[in-house]
């Protein structure tokens, strides 16, 4: 083994594990995959989450999609994508006119400072997208002992 390869093999796993060295997953690729190539509209989604999160283990996230939620015009699904999480697909909410309001709240884990992307699937094969940057001081996915 060449010396530089040996060194590379020694340090690569470390670098890959260190927070921030992981390159973000491509949100546009994910959007294309979920929408089947449709271009989502950049409107009609309100994201409420802190701009700075001290603890990435539990970041409050409130998503509101403007919709009358009728049988003809409603939100069918809300997808959440965190580009710097080791598994970027955070969750998918399935809803319909029975929900009455396209309004969901949860707490998410964020592996580091990143853009969080939310994609909404509406009836009639329409799509909307919104993203917000969150600065995370202490990322999730770490052992308590290493904090």
């Amino acid at each position, binding site marked *: 083994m060449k010396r530089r390869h040996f060194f590379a093999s020694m340090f690569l796993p470390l670098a890959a594990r260190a927070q921030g060295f992981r390159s973000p997953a491509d949100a546009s690729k994910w959007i294309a995959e979920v929408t089947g190539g449709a271009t989502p509209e950049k409107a009609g989604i309100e994201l409420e989450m802190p701009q700075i999160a001290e603890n990435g283990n539990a970041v409050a996230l409130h998503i509101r999609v403007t919709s009358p939620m009728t049988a003809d015009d409603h939100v069918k699904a809300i997808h959440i994508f965190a580009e710097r*999480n080791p598994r970027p697909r955070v969750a*998918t909410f399935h809803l319909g006119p029975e*929900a009455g309001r396209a*309004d969901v709240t*949860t707490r998410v*884990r964020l592996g580091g400072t990143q853009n969080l992307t939310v994609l909404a699937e509406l009836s009639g094969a329409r799509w909307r997208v919104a993203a917000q940057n969150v600065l995370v001081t202490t990322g999730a996915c770490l052992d*308590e002992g290493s904090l």
Partner: protein
Amino acid sequence: MIDGRLRVPESVKPGEPFEVRVLILHPMENGFRHDAAGREIPVHIVNKVSCTYGGREVFSVDLGTGISANPYLVFFVRAGGSGVLKVEWIDDAGERGSASANVNVG
């Protein structure tokens, strides 16, 4: 059984969306943590939560490892008449839990 809490308003107006709050007691192990002996703790998460009203599914969530420990969910449901709202959850080991509440519409 996986324990959890469910909260709905005491009474709601017909056709008016009301808030449903769910808290599930689960570690949501993301597979990136290690125990005291340095062994990897495998992924162990609640991966599906569904809500029925009067026996009909009205809302559901697919959860990943990016959802915090003790998953907390708030969503809305609209009801035309009184009924039973039931929320069920299952984890990747097949363990289940549920909670239900009467919703008085009027």
